[in-house]
């Protein structure tokens, strides 16, 4: 039933393709240099991500001013020693806004990845372990997955006021079905494994089986999936802001800065360029980390992707 939907990669922006169905094996790391040489794109992605995290965490100490402070007499200034990226249409400092924006985008990315993994894991485990719930859950999940995720997130945002919390909830809800499907398929394949059969035969309780045998094996594919969800969530956040349904516009998020600047694209391309570059680099970094993790955690897939 509905096999194409269940077996294939998730729709939307997440891009995990296939699941490992065996226990992942870790390769031993031979020093930092060896790591970089062996996995250059993972190293590059991780490095870039660390830089962005640095921006996010230390935003107030990086030469920034209050990102919300208006100065209408100094609007639309070009980049200068005083305002490194110039100022926007309300005279706010673009550099400060972009640096503070890293907080919002990364928060959305990480929180959505965390919550959708946790909730998706719960739903997937229950569905995978309990037969009669499986039917109901899977119908629900098929239904939700038939609504394109951006439409679903936009529709959810239309329900409520724009806030960071609501954006995270909306994107999380749109992503949960995908994680749940992934976890369920891992659980179903694990249940066929002889050692699980053996555990059942030995009278181990179901929660114990889950904790000992099932859970550890879902972690690797879920970690990979979570990075892709993180990347996807940051893009969706920008699109929500573009449509006018994102985090509150007084919050400087990259999506908001671009949405505000887009009308002036021809006269002040920097208003879109700087946040777009930061967003693209961050998403790129997360995607590269995701690819790298997948290669590292799943040697079988590593050769092919």
């Amino acid at each position, binding site marked *: 039933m509905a096999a194409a939907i269940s077996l294939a990669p998730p729709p939307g922006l997440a891009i995990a393709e296939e699941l490992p169905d065996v226990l992942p094996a870790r390769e031993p790391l031979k020093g930092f240099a060896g790591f970089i040489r062996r996995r250059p794109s993972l190293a590059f992605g991780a490095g870039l991500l660390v830089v962005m995290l640095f921006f996010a965490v230390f935003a107030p100490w990086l030469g920034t001013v209050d990102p919300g402070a208006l100065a209408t007499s100094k609007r639309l200034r070009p980049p200068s020693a005083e305002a490194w990226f110039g100022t926007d*249409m309300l005279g706010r400092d673009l550099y400060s806004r972009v640096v503070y924006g890293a907080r919002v985008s990364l928060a959305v990315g990480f929180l959505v990845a965390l919550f959708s993994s946790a909730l998706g894991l719960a739903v997937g485990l229950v569905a995978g372990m309990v037969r009669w719930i499986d039917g109901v859950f899977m119908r629900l999940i098929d239904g939700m997955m038939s609504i394109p995720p951006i439409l679903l997130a936009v529709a959810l945002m239309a329900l409520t006021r724009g806030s960071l919390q609501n954006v995270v909830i909306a994107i999380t809800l749109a992503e949960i079905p995908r994680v749940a499907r992934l976890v369920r398929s891992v659980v179903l394949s694990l249940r066929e494994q002889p050692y699980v059969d053996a555990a059942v035969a030995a009278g181990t309780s179901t929660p114990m089986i889950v904790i000992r045998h099932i859970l550890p094996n879902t972690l690797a594919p879920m970690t990979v999936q979570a990075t892709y969800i993180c990347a996807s969530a940051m893009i969706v956040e920008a699109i929500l802001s573009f449509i006018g349904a994102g985090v509150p516009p007084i919050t400087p998020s990259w999506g908001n800065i671009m949405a505000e600047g887009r009308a002036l694209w021809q006269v002040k391309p920097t208003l879109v360029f700087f946040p777009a570059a930061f967003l693209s680099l961050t998403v790129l970094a997360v995607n590269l980390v995701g690819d790298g993790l997948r290669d590292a955690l799943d040697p079988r897939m590593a050769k092919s992707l």
Partner: protein
Amino acid sequence: MKGTFMDRRSFIQASVAAGFIGATGGLSAPAIAQAGRKTLKFVPQANLANFDPIWGTQYVVRNAAALVWDTLYGVDEKLQPQRQMVESETVSDDGLVWTFKLRSGLKFHDGEAVLAKDAVASLARWSARDPMGLMIKALQNELVAVDDLTFRWSLKQPYPKMLLALGKNNAPCSFVMPERLAQTDPFTQIKEYIGSGPMKFAQKEWVPGAIAVFEKFEDYKSRDEPSSWLAGGKRMMLDRIEWIIMPDPATALSALQNGEIDWWENPLSDLVPVLQGASDVTVDIADKLGNVGAFRMNHLYPPFDKVEIRRAVLTAMNQEDYMRAIVGSDDALWKPMPGFFTPGTQFYSEQGGDIMKMKNLDAAKKLLEQAGYAGEPVTCVVAQDQSITKAQGDVTADLLRRMGMTVDFVATDWGTVGSRRASKKPPKDGGWNMFHTWHAGADCLSPAGYNALRANGEKAWFGWPNSPKTEEGIAEWFSAADVEAEKAALARTNEAAVNDVVYGVTGFFLSYQAWRNDVQGVREGPLPFFWDVTKA
């Protein structure tokens, strides 16, 4: 169950097919017929989402309706109502009985003659919705057709502003529709768009949110006088006008530069330098009457139920910040405005307006303290999809924060603001403390079209200000005998409205319009006038 599924599927197939056939059938005919005809492509300020100018009163609906429907009177550029569909009128000496005679030979787009019964039904529907219409209706004895072309409106008390009411350009205008349409309930939309104006509405080509098309009405009988705003002969030099909706100013800018559109109603002022630099585009002020920026405070709930706290906001604010945020860096485009009536017009007054010039944050903080402001949150609802409300909201958030007030900034869209501002509930239960909007300067000339200034408490516009002195002044104006008395009445109104802070004026600003050089005859005015416009 299976049958159900097939129903849905075949429905989708049918509608997909209908889309192709509909689009092909609907669009190929005009495409072929277009050769040699003059088509103007116009980008309006907003989407034409509904098209009943009595039922919905957005500016964009009024502007489109002015092409399709004619009015009994029309104001000219001097703001004087002139006869339009009416040939002559008489008023009895006691001012109680108005008798109007229509011009003969006027026709609706369906070929039917325009008769007195149509005018009577249209006025009845209009007077159920329009603020001035409601005043007349309250005084009405009877409104009847006397013969085919004559109708009579008799009143219990004189209403000196009758002709202005029938000719004003403030929505809803008293458009004349065929009787069968005008009999529609005023709170239900009409389903056919038939008028007697110079252009027909091509209903089949209308794609709300994308395009609206108007075709020349060959049987339109224009007046002989030269045209002036809604008055005079509305001679159409164009065969077809396409209103193309563009949600994105960056796209509209490129399209105008590329010659894909002819006329852009409201270019962002920050983009105007690009257009001024283009040799084949003309840019000019759209309307000297401009616009009045506004924020409204909810007078029913703390903190703005206290007049001192409302005054504190006026004391602290700097209109310059609001205006620069709206119009950009060109200082010729805005003026501070320590009053409520449109600057540069006869009733403009600064009486009592000194508080609006103070820009004094410390004085404001002191006022807040004296009024006992205790950190009650201000729920500020701001529409993000309108550049004017968004810019003002950003400035207000900064202002209140600097004053030391607690701001609960609710970013949302114009639709939600529209619904939420109507709620009289406490802010925490879905109500509000503050929202932003703007009014066309043409609406703020006098109390005639100025709903936002009314201060009759629960019956007033959103925010429900209660200022008896303001209301007294307005009443005096309506019954004033001459211009001097009118001016005196409105100066007093202005002072009272400032003292009680009916609403917050953020300044007066002009906006631009831009068109390709091969278009001639674009004029200034509160709405785009298409008559006498030519395209090479």
